[in-house]
Structure formats: C-alpha cells, structure tokens
C-alpha cells in the first residue's frame, strides 16, 4: 500500500464511525519501490492530499525526514521538497503491518501489500 492510497482511505464504513480518518499505520515491513518522478502529477495530486495525514503517515513509516508539518505556499518551486513528497506519496510501500481506526480502534491487517478492509456483517454501517 502506497501512502497516497492511505491518504484516501477511511474506516467510516464501520457502524458508528463518522470520520475514521486518518488511519494509524503500524508498520512491520516497509519497502521503497521506484516510480518515475513526475512533478506535475505530484503537484496536482497534492490538491487532493490531506497534508497533516500524509506527514503523520510518513513519520509512522520512518520516511518523514525533511517533510514540514505544514506545507508552505511556494512548495511548487522547491524541487528538493517535491522529490521528497514524491518519495513519500508514491515510492514508500507498506508490505506488512496494520491500519488502526482512530475512533473504534478496529485493526485492518496489511499482508503482501494489500490492506484487508473486509468487515463482519454486524460492523457494516448505514
């Protein structure tokens, strides 16, 4: 699982959970996979990304070095920073570990890079 995907994931499908974001990452195995650097894509994607959640996820997986807590206005010109964001967003992959719902504490295991988001019937909301 890439951190970009993590940034979009919530656990609000569980009954009683309203926001369910961001999910806490408990990493066991993290890998770096090479992805082509595309600054235009990174900048456009950042408009959808929740920055505090990405920062937290990067710190949790051990790749938070050099990422500021808040994103300044001129980040588009900062090549160094964009490369670090590219690394955190697209290259860091959680292979084994757990995602934890911030409200209910429900754990979603990650195996082989795939988070298991299956729910028990009694947990389904709506």
């Amino acid at each position, binding site marked *: 699982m890439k951190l970009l*995907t993590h940034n979009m994931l919530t656990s609000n499908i569980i009954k009683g959970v309203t926001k369910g974001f961001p999910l806490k990452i408990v990493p066991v195995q993290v890998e770096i996979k090479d992805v082509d650097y595309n600054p235009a894509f990174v900048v456009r994607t950042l408009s959808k990304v929740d920055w505090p959640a990405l920062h937290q996820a990067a710190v949790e997986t051990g790749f938070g070095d050099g990422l500021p807590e808040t994103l300044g206005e001129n980040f588009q010109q900062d090549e160094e920073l964009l490369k670090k964001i590219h690394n955190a967003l697209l290259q860091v992959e959680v292979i084994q570990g757990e995602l934890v719902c911030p409200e209910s504490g429900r754990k979603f295991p990650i195996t*082989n890079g795939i988070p298991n988001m*299956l*729910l028990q019937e009694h947990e*389904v909301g*709506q």
Partner: protein
Amino acid sequence: MAASGRPEHQAPPEIFYNETEASKYTSNSRMIEIQQKLTERALELLALPEDVPCYILDIGCGSGLSGEVLTDNDHTWVGIDISPSMLDVAVEREVEGDLLLGDMGNGLPFRPGTFDGVVSISALQWLCNADKKCHSPVKRMLVFFRTLYAVMGRGARAIFQLYPENGAQLELLTQQAMKAGFTGGLVIDYPNSTKAKKIFLCLFCGGPSQVLPQGLGTEESNTNVAQMSGRRERFRKSVKSSRDWVIEKKERRRRQGKETKPDTQYTGRKRRGHHF
C-alpha cells in the same frame, strides 16, 4: 467469466475465484483479450478529459487486467476485490495500481470526492447474490451505491460492465443507484446479437446534466418506435439468394456487430456461366 454457466450460481466470489480460477486470468489469452476490450470501451464511456492523468477506482479489479488498460492510458488507479487469490495474482504481475481486499457490499472505504472516475468489469452482478444467511442484496446495493456516490468527485462517471441474469436484476440495480442520487442509465452495445451484446450501467454523479452515450451497433434500430402508416404492409421475406435477400442478410450481420463487406454493385450479382 468462465465459459460454463454462471459463476455466481456456483460459490461466493471469494471462494469461486480460487487459485485455479485466478490463474486462468493470466494464462488464457481469450479471457485476457475480452477483459481488455471491455475496459477500453468502459474507459471510452467514462469520457475523461483528454491528456489529463486521472485517479480511478476499479471495483472488482481481480488480477489487474483492467488496471493495465488504465495504466496504459496514464491513469493512476486503486483496485478493490473480494478474492485474495485474484489479488495475489495481481501482486505477482506487478500491476501499477494499489490493491485493497474488500467487499463492495460493505461500502467503499474512501474519503469523499476522491475519484475522478470509476470502472468495474463483470463484477456488479455479484451484488445481486445473498452468499451468507445474513446478506440482503437490496440493502447491500444501497450501501454500495451510497458510499460510491460519496467517494466520487462531482460530475464524475461510474461505468459498470455487467452480466445481469434477468431484467429484474438490472431494474433493481438501477433503482437502488437512482435512490442513492445517481443519474444515468444503461448503454447496450450490439443489442441485436446474443453473443456480442454487452451491457454497461453508466452512472453520473451530480454536476451539469450529462447525455447518455449511445451503444455501438444501435444507429438505425428504432425498433421500439411504432411506425404508423396509411397502408398496411405485410412483412415478406425476399426470395432466397436474390440481391435483396443478400443485402438484408448483410444488414442483419452489421446490426450484430459482425464483420461485413460493404455493399457494392457486385453484391448479389448473378455469376456468369462459363462459356467457351
């Protein structure tokens, strides 16, 4: 889909798509080609802005065959599937998209407005089944469509290619989608052919009103409209192997989406005898 009958009748998806079935999706070139063609058509119906890489959700992504088409078109995608074996094959094939193990009937676990478009190839009919005692298909459909509506951006489209068992299933699915707030409807390619016929449920998520695209091979089949005419004309078949008969037959093939040579001055012309 396996050639022998409906997989939905055999077992729940997470059990039916076991390792043997999953391996077919990498070794069987016919299956691969069908999946790719369907995805290309779905992508066309999705009508994304040109040359802009988008963020797409693939529901029932399986081994990632449909995802590869998305990658080829420079889109980033996330796939969700209920079968661990199929997802393992996707990991083995090193697909570009990220994968999730999940059940669409549980709802989609994403932030609001995440996706620019949604595709789903041959998966939605599974939602019509109650595979566990506690499953209620109607409720699962509504949960699915409500969360789907939430995770899509405004004006985005969701295209589902599906194999419904009967009209009732199709009606129920459409009804639940409308209940969740979607507009749109069905696009049917080659409706006159049993084999080439493909059904797409196209859903629009808010935004300015959108026109439903036309199905392929439907250009001149206004058979639903009753034609009123003063004189009653009896339908009569043309004499076999006459020029009219040949042209009618070619027309029928075209409606079924089959390859047909164009009509020319030579069409249905009598061959001359060989006199020496």
